[in-house]
């Protein structure tokens, strides 16, 4: 299992796209930093100090939620693209034949793939998350609450997508799997937005659509939980009063986190069961 995980890890490092993604991520952070810088410069020119502090707090939290939303999106995209072909790609190319015919159980192969990719994506996601929070704090002085619990939630998102991509990869072709997982992710995302609008206009049907979609794909619910903890804690009471589609005014309960963990475990088990029976 460790051998497979190590190889999966090294494979990512051997690809040019990995370095391109790193450069583009830095570019994203730079653009975000510049946007924050000019916002701060603009707000600090205001004559009314109370008004400027209040507006600043709202603006920075909105910009931070925007950055976190797109960070989640980048991490999700990266996870799906890197994992959809992790098994099916090897089956399609035939490299798997000289691997699983060795003294290796099939579950070890799947767990190795999962462990290698999970480690890689977690390091990337954690770095991106801390960079976004750090840049915000450094430039604006804005302090979100619950940074570490937020990071744990932020890491659950790629882990969930990874498990789902791996499960699909042991069942479908790379292309079909990529489309399926990404569509599911989009369903979760749209459902989350619909739910926020539903809460905003007090429409039960929209809220129910959101809840249903988060049961199918809990990524957005986890994002909302994270962003609520970060932006709506005791330090940031204002945020609950403003509507922001990237933020959350009514977070999912802790039960949603338990549901998501069960979801991830079930998907991993399904991947193992499917792959155990699959003809290659």
């Amino acid at each position: 299992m460790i051998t497979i995980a190590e190889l999966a890890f090294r494979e990512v490092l051997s690809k040019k796209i990995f370095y391109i993604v790193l450069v583009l991520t830095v570019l994203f952070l730079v653009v975000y930093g510049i946007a924050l810088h000019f916002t701060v410069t603009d707000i600090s020119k205001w004559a009314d100090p109370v008004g400027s502090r209040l507006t600043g707090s709202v603006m920075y939290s909105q910009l931070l939620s925007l950055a976190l939303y797109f960070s989640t999106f980048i991490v999700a995209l990266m996870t799906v693209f890197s994992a959809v072909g992790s098994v099916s790609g090897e089956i399609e190319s035939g490299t798997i034949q000289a691997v699983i015919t060795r003294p290796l159980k099939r579950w070890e192969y799947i767990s190795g793939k999962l462990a290698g990719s999970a480690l890689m994506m977690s390091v990337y996601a954690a770095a991106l998350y801390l960079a976004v929070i750090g840049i915000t704090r450094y430039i604006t002085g804005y302090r979100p609450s619950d940074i570490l619990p937020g990071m744990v939630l932020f890491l659950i998102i790629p882990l969930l997508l990874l498990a789902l991509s791996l499960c699909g990869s042991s069942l479908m072709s790379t292309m079909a799997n990529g489309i399926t997982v990404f569509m599911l992710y989009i369903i979760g995302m749209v459902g989350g937005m619909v739910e926020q609008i539903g809460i905003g206009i007090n429409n039960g049907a929209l809220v129910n659509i959101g809840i249903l979609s988060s049961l199918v794909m809990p990524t957005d619910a986890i994002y909302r939980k994270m962003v609520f903890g970060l932006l709506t804690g005791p330090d940031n009471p204002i945020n609950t009063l403003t509507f922001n589609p990237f933020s959350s005014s009514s977070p999912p309960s802790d039960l949603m986190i338990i549901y998501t963990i069960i979801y991830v475990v079930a998907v991993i088990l399904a991947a193992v069961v499917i792959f155990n029976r699959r003809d290659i």
Partner: protein
Amino acid sequence: MVIKIDRLTKWYGNKLGCQDICLSVLPGEVFGFLGHNGAGKSTLVKMLVGLIFPTSGQAEILGRPLGDTEVKKRVGFLPETFRFQDWLTGYQLLNFQASLYKMPGSTRRNRIEEVLKLVRLSGHEHYKIRTYSKGMQQRLGLAAALLPDPDLLILDEPTSAMDPLGRKEVRDIILKLKDDGKTIFLNSHLLSEVEVVCDHVALIKRGRIIASGSINELKEGNIEVEMKIGNFNKVVQQALKDTGIPVWWEKDRVLATVGDREQIPFLAETVIRNGGSLYQLNTLDNSLENLFLSLMQEGGEQN
């Protein structure tokens, strides 16, 4: 018994992969599994190495049922077209394969060097695999299969994608392994290869074994007859078919396999009586190729 297969059958949905395959391979034997492309050779090998699961029947390798992880440590397998992580160097690939075989670090380095030497890749191991020629890649695959010093080596079309020189190189390695007493299961559609290296062969057609035995046993009792026939029209062709003797032809060159010398004049008489002009009739050295063609044709008619 190194391999013991009992009525192994594989269906892919409603398409037959292979059916009721029974065979056994003894220690130290080089066993050739022969058939056209798509006959079901790879299906059998894939079941043996655990890539696909049989629909019915059973098999044992080194006394253990299929899929046994401990047995896999003693089996080397070279897939039909050996594909690998081509971003690795040859050495890195072998090192990865050695960890899959759970070889201890202390013996690993020496063993990698040994197999590299055996397949004549020493000096190339630190280049990326994507820079290797097809022949070198196949030999690297062979090196990977040989890493655990296996009791059984399963080779699926080891030379199919190679040029004649590459084929000879791989064939020489197989012969050397044979001399070293290795048991080898060789899947091939190349008769010349099987004829040179194998002790026993089984012929598969449309998923079923149609003949098996030692090469000498299979050749025994059959005489190849080559004829040049003028006016080789449909009447003559039908008459030859009606004799019941396996016959096939290319233009005016006709080949027949007779089980008995007495059938030779009978063949000549059939040609002449039906208006064919018999310019030439020779008996040939009985090569496996002719036998193969004859058995494949017979097998087809029986099916």
